[in-house]
């Protein structure tokens, strides 16, 4: 839960467009479902409360989220239902941030946008192919 806060902020930022996402005219539920009336609190576990929001109808399909509270703070948000649509599924993926590393390693092949033969000659793949050809010829 140490990293809950940044996760939380980004989760909420990520979910706002989902809630606001083009609801069809007959969509009834209030978009700010996070901590409001329509939330039904459920099974507390270790001081936290999990609450499922209402199912919100949008033109792309139903959307429902589950929010975990610790006291009054939201510590996790999970999609229970979401339309299979890029604009909503994009709210879900988790990404890990790392620093860029330059390494050499034993590999079978190299992925890279090697388009021209000049680039190919200087690339690792060329070295690998040369070694393989040598091995095969020996």
């Amino acid at each position, binding site marked *: 839960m140490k990293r809950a806060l940044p996760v939380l902020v980004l989760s909420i930022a990520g979910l706002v467009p989902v809630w606001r996402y083009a609801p069809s005219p007959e969509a009834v539920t209030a978009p700010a479902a996070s901590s409001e009336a329509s939330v039904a609190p459920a099974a507390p576990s270790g001081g936290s409360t999990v609450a499922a929001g209402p199912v919100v109808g949008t033109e792309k399909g139903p959307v429902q989220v589950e929010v975990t509270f610790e006291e009054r703070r939201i510590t996790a948000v999970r999609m229970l239902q979401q339309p299979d649509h890029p604009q909503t599924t*994009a709210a879900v993926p988790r990404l890990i941030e790392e620093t860029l590393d330059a390494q050499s390693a034993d590999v079978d092949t190299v992925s890279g*946008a090697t388009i021209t033969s000049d680039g190919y000659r200087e690339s690792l*793949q060329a070295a690998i192919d040369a070694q393989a050809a040598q091995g095969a010829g020996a």
Partner: protein
Amino acid sequence: MGFPVSLRLDDPVGPGGVPEAAVDGVFAWLREVDARFSPFRPDSEVSRLDRGEVPRPSAQLREVLDLCEEYRAATGGAFDVRLPGRGLDPCAVVKGWSVQRAAESLRAAGARGFCLNAGGDVVAAGGPWRVGVRHPEHADRLCTVLEVADGAVATSARYERGDHIVDGRTGRPATGLLAVTVVAPTLTEADAVATAAFAMGTEGVAWAAAREGCEVFAVDAGRRVLRTPGLPVAGAAPGPGPAAGKEHTAAPV
């Protein structure tokens, strides 16, 4: 389109193994694809269709154009093979699609263990294969190593051809990312998603990560790496976040 192709085959070739014709067929097919679908050849089917000289595309070109349209719609127009003022250029889809087909023909001919690399796009079968990802700034270095048993890896990057991928929404070269690598079940998907994500810029990382079956490794213009937790990094168990590295939920488009 002109890209180097290398095939590493673990199975024996010849009688009792993979027929030599099947191996030759891979290269013949890719040459045929270049002749038919390259926008850089004035006599290709793509060029003739674009000039209105053929009434309707062949079934295979139709398939490619349908895929192009699918990705255009999925990216809100960032991925577009019909940019204003330019000719029809379906290269980004043709490459992945054709190499995937080549891999399937090898498999149909009995090949079980192979690694097909076409211009840096890889289809692996019967691995584990160790697939290095070229460092975006150093041609002779890697920035990560993936382990892929059966699947495809494609990378879109600025390093070699400069700013050649255009964001169809703005008509300008995409500059938000230095490189993006996508691992997917097929190269058709991996290559198109890598190119589309690159065209979208930084928001393309989350977009690609949300595609079913896709794992992503991206380097943004600030040299920051963003990757999905399920990326098959060699020597590390895939799964929820490593000790180092902070996680966050990606913001949507």
